[in-house]
């Protein structure tokens, strides 16, 4: 039987959806929708909680999983994690300074789908510690000063809106002013429809800033993680001096469901996975999350010398 394609676009509604992520799938069924574990709390999950790998069903404690950088010890499945986990994994000594956390989304257009956008934002802010779908921080990786922009899929599917555009733009300015490289950790379902054309224009806005970074001869590395789609792939996700994928990550322009509906055929095994993109020439390399920090260190050393 053909495997059902993941509906990437569904994540962009801003409603709580059952996550593929095993971290949040406990032994208990969530009766009431709408409880999101905030990323900052997630780290402090008590010893003794168990988690099941969605790929191989291997069960281990959450502590074991987090010590293994949220990679399944048995099958190497890379769990979907948020900015807090990535910052923790990548920055030396877990020391970093978050920038531009005061920039918040705003319902400028008065957009209402099944719920008004401003209400949607308020509801998410109430439940989650995340302020938006991206966080920017500076710190050191293996001694190299770096700025990381990292998306949070839990916030309206990591959707690309004005806040992402502005934070990354200011991040690029910061990199230019301080002569440091930028790493973009992509994890997004696409553009934030509630911001309409403004969200589309962020593709151009960020690309313009990247071009200024390029003129300043600063490295820009795009790390594409599971999943990365739509506007992010069609702009700064694919514009890295290096485009790096995490193993098995789903990466594409159109979501698999949309493609399947268009071509009316089943999609081949492994379609739109990192390995597929590498074979077709759109990723420069795939790096295991457990080796990520060390490899970044090597890359920056090579760029410098």
């Amino acid at each position, binding site marked *: 039987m053909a495997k059902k394609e993941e509906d990437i*676009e*569904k994540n*962009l*509604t801003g409603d709580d959806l059952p996550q593929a992520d095993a971290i949040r799938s406990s032994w208990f069924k969530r009766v009431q929708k709408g409880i999101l574990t905030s990323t900052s709390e997630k780290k402090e999950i008590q010893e003794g909680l168990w988690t099941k790998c969605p790929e191989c069903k291997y069960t281990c404690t959450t502590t074991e999983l987090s010590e293994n950088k949220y990679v399944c010890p048995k099958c190497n499945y890379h769990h979907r994690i948020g900015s807090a986990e990535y910052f923790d994994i990548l920055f030396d000594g877990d020391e970093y300074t978050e920038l531009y956390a*005061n*920039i*918040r989304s*705003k319902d400028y*257009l008065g*957009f*209402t*789908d*099944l719920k008004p956008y401003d209400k949607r934002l308020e509801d998410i802010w109430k439940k989650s510690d995340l302020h938006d779908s991206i966080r920017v921080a500076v710190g050191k990786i293996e001694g190299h000063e770096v700025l990381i922009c990292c998306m949070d899929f839990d916030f309206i599917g990591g959707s690309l*809106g*004005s*806040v992402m*555009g*502005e934070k990354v*733009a200011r991040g690029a300015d910061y990199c230019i002013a301080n002569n440091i490289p930028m790493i973009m950790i992509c994890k997004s379902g696409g*553009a934030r*429809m*509630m*911001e*309409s*054309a*403004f*969200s*589309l*224009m*962020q*593709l*151009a*806005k960020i*690309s*313009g*800033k*990247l*071009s*200024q970074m390029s003129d300043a001869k600063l490295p820009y590395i795009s790390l594409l993680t599971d999943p990365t789609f*739509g*506007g992010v*792939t*069609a*702009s*700064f*996700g*694919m*514009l890295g001096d290096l485009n790096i994928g995490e193993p098995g990550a789903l990466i*594409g*322009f*159109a979501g698999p469901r*949309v*493609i399947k509906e*268009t*071509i009316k055929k089943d*999609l*081949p095994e492994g*379609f739109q996975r990192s390995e597929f993109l590498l074979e*077709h020439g*759109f990723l420069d390399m795939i790096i295991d999350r457990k080796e990520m920090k060390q490899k970044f260190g090597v890359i920056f050393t090579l760029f410098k010398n």
Partner: protein
Amino acid sequence: MPSLENRQFIELEKPIKELVDELKDFRQRAEKNAKVDYSGTIDQLEKSIIAKREDITKELTSWQKVQLSRHPDRPYTLKYIDKMCTNFVEIFGDRGVKDDKAMVGGFAQLDGETVMVIGQQKGINTKMRQLRNFGMANPEGYRKALRLMKLAEKFNKPIITLIDTPGAYPGLEAEERGQGEAIARNIYEMMRLKVPVICVVIGEGASGGALGIGVGDKVLMLENTWYTVISPESCSSILWRSWEKKEIAAEQLKLTPEHMHKFGLVDGIVPEPAGGAHWDYDLAAQLLKKELLPLLQELKTIDPEVRIKNRIERYSKMGFWDEI
């Protein structure tokens, strides 16, 4: 332009169709019976049709604008080039995979001056629509467009892009050949082009597929077009979980030229002939040309480095947020 006999009418044009049917009827009668003078009635009807055309497009809903932008008789890129320019030399292929028929372009003269015109192309009948893939370009289309832009840059010729796409093609091969990368590359490179770039939405401006040839010093929209991040149908299916809310989605997306101009996301609105561009191709092209010429002159006087800086700043300003 289709003759009155071959015209197609969409739902909102029903009142015009009734008048046109009446007119056709009287013309036939006049032909058959030379003894009766119908010229007064025919004159009157012709005038009413023009008045009705104006009337209908005066107050359109967002969804009606979307419908008009997809009118089957609407002029497409090659039509505008034909009517606006002279000495058009079409250039094919991306020098990599193939020639994408959904993306066309080449050098031409606009009022005697050489420009590069590039745009998505839709088909004019069923067979051509398939050949043109309904104006949905594959990666090779975007790479072809970029190749032509680079060519224009080399010879220091301004670039005009005409946008008309329901989106970049969401196909299997498109993904294999890097649809995302192709659009990303175009957006990035267009930002850095040393020559003036003017982009005009002449029909549908859907998402990344539109922006892939849509980064410029000036961006215009024709009167009966739309431009936003997603088609109203897809937006409805994702956010409303139903294909039936497209009218509401169109309203909510604020995708009309008036909205886009008010938001400062486009620089101007190009008027169309009464009732829409499909009523008069010559006039539609002349109206566009009239807007393009002064803009080209204005942009030419700016130093290329300054122009690029302005272009980056133009987009840097876009967005809305709170700072707390």
